[in-house]
């Protein structure tokens, strides 16, 4: 116990250890936060949901905070609807069961770029006669543009940019541009815009709801991808996945390597020979190719890949290193004493040999975490990521496949890459410091 406290206080003398520990604690906090706020099922639904889940988001939207760094401002996305009152509406009953609905939504537009699209999602209930809705657009400079007159079916989507009638009326191909620019100067008009909606229902039970979705240029804290998914979900959920994969692989590999090396050295004979032969064969096997083959042919599940990684990483150079150290430890006096009082083989292996090597195990374990975290990301970048889980590597793969760098969507790669980098560096820094604390040979160097 005292030794442990000693090494801990020794450890905290290294600034890199403090930074590394803080980074790891931060990551653990994010991981716990992600798992608690977005439960597993919900995360999967949001990641694989498609258009139904993410229709309110624009495609390829950068995170909203880039406005802080840019002199020209991008429009933020929003969506409002009559159902929850974010579009205030008044319903006045008329004669013979008809009723009229008036709703006005006013918003301020101060961006230097046009939004991607404006969409109305209209839903209604009726027996026979379809309700009717008309929309008008009021610009800050006082123009009024009639947008559409529609008979509404039960679920209807109206996209401003794709309405051919509106294109003809405005004599333009780009509806969004002519809605937001001054027709004479061609400049974007900033100020308060209004969307006027007026609807009529023709049956007493009939009613109508409208959702107005504004697809801007930026979205949320993390932005969105090609499928309108909020990148916050994979960024948050990638943390527990990366940590779990890295830690489990590192722990499994180093503990199993050590136990097998200890058993081999203690019992010697054919056990030791077998372990050495397996190691020789395994060193010849191409590690990454075999993982790629397993991913392509068998299963891309993260658990299969994790087990294969551990199995292939046990019998490598480190088992040889452990073996040579165990050979020395085996000859020590305390082992001799244990043998003399009749301790059994397993007892000597697990209570005498292995505990002696724990100081060597810990730095190696921590330092090997980044390699495994990046291995998972590398496989995902090659298209062999887990098919279900949202991970950082998957974001990079999506971004690469969609030419993010070429098309200038830098945020898309930078966000997961930064997180990966921080994780890798955090563990590597702590591992380096641990190596110096536990490895007295290095302490002075």
């Amino acid at each position: 116990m005292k030794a442990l406290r000693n090494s801990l206080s020794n450890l905290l003398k290294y600034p890199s250890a403090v930074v590394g520990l803080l980074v790891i604690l931060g990551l653990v906090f994010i991981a716990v936060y992600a798992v608690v706020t977005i439960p597993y099922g919900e995360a999967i639904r949001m990641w694989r949901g498609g258009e139904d889940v993410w229709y309110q988001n624009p495609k390829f939207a950068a995170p909203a905070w880039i406005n802080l760094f840019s002199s020209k401002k991008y429009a933020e996305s929003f969506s409002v609807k009559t159902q929850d009152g974010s579009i205030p509406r008044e319903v006045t009953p008329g004669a013979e069961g008809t009723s009229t609905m008036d709703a006005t939504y006013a918003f301020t537009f101060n961006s230097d770029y046009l939004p991607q699209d404006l969409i109305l999602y209209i839903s209604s209930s009726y027996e026979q006669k379809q309700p009717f809705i008309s929309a008008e657009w009021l610009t800050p400079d006082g123009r009024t543009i009639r947008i559409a007159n529609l008979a509404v079916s039960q679920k209807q989507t109206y996209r401003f940019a794709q309405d051919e009638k509106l294109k003809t009326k405005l004599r333009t191909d780009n509806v969004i541009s002519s809605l937001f620019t001054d027709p004479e100067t061609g400049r974007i008009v900033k100020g308060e815009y209004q969307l006027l909606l007026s609807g009529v229902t023709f049956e007493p039970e009939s009613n109508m709801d409208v959702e107005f979705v504004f697809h801007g240029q930026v979205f949320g804290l993390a932005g969105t991808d090609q499928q309108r998914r909020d990148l916050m979900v994979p960024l948050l959920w990638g943390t527990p996945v990366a940590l779990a994969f890295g830690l489990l692989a590192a722990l499994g590999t180093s503990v199993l390597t050590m136990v097998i090396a200890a058993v081999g050295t203690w019992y010697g004979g054919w056990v030791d020979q077998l372990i050495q032969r397996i190691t020789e064969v395994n060193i010849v096997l191409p590690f990454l190719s075999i993982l790629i083959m397993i991913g392509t042919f068998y299963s891309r599940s993260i658990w299969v890949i994790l087990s294969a990684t551990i199995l292939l990483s046990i019998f490598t150079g480190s088992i040889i290193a452990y073996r040579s150290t165990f050979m020395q430890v085996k000859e020590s006096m305390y082992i001799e004493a244990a043998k003399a009082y009749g301790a059994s083989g397993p007892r000597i292996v697990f209570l005498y040999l292995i505990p002696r090597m724990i100081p060597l195990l810990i730095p190696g374990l921590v330092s090997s975490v980044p390699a495994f975290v990046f291995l998972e990301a590398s496989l995902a970048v090659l298209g062999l990521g887990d098919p279900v889980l949202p991970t950082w590597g998957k974001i990079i793969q999506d971004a690469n496949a969609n030419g993010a760098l070429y098309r200038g969507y830098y945020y898309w790669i930078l966000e997961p890459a930064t997180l990966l980098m921080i994780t890798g560096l955090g563990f590597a820094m702590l591992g380096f410091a641990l190596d110096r604390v536990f490895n007295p040979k290095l302490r002075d160097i």
Partner: protein
Amino acid sequence: MAVVTGTPTGNVEAKKRAGNSAVLRVARFTITRILTLAITVTISVYLTIMIANMGGYVDTIMRGEIRDRVTQTIANSPSARQMDPEVRAKLIRDTIASEEERVGLNVPIAVRNFRYLSNALTLQLGRAHNMTSDSGSKTVRLILLERLPPTLLLMGTSQLFLFFSSVLLALNLSRRYGSFWDKLVVAFSPTSAVPPWFYGIFLILIFAAVFKILPFGGMVDSPPPSNPVDYGLSLLKHMLLPAASLVISSFFLSIYNYRTFFLIYSSEDYVEMAKAKGLPSRDVERRYILRPTLPNIITNFALLIISLWTGATITETVFLWPGLGRTLFQAIGLYDIPVIVGSTIIYAYLLALTVFMLDFVYALVDPRVKVGGK
């Protein structure tokens, strides 16, 4: 000359006996080593073949693909359209059968595995199932040979640069222990936890996307310049980013490792002794520090040479570099077992050969080591 014992004839005999036993020892060692290495290589290659076959499941995939492809081709060909439905069905069946025979699907999987194994071990790499080289050949040897120069160029340049620069810098640093540069290298060594393709993405972002001064990927401009000088320049321009990312990713850790290694050796008593004698520091470095560390440096160098062969799969994929690593990845995606096995067997042979040679090289550079001695 210092010790002369016994009669001259006795001395010669003793020498002869010693020489004989040395030859015997070396021969026995060589034979056992070659045998164990051969067994190791055989088992590894067989395992690779088993995994690449996926216990026979790949056969099902390939059968399906052949059926699809043949049916499509025949259904689309104008001459087949005028045929009798029965004649056409027979044509499809026959084509599928001959196609399956070409790929070898008519032979049981266990037999095929051993055939793959014996062909691989005798380096008859055979023909690829789906891949073709750029010149249109399906011969695995040609496919691999065509991809070898780009990989050797990229990996060779970056790894050799990395090796020599880090050994030299480390020697230099080990003399200036505790200086600013030394601390800098120690502080930066965790950066090597990040793999090269990752730095590659950042480099592409900075130099290709933002500054637009270097290409995103590929090996030469398209169309390739006809003038050899322009071709070389274009190649250099395309190679800069992948080579840089390969170097950056291992640079600091490599220097750090060599430096620590040299430092451990430079605190030996005989080094202190040499310094006390007043030998110039160059001599101390060369003869007292570098010399005993030579076996380790040679091992590293040999492993580096082997790593040239495998290429860097992900870095090559990220930079669209037409090398062996990317070819292997493509081969796996196309279930092209001959290419996978071909690439593995050459790696296995190279590794075995290097391990075998190293034992002798150690004996050459380190007088304490005897070949086959305990």
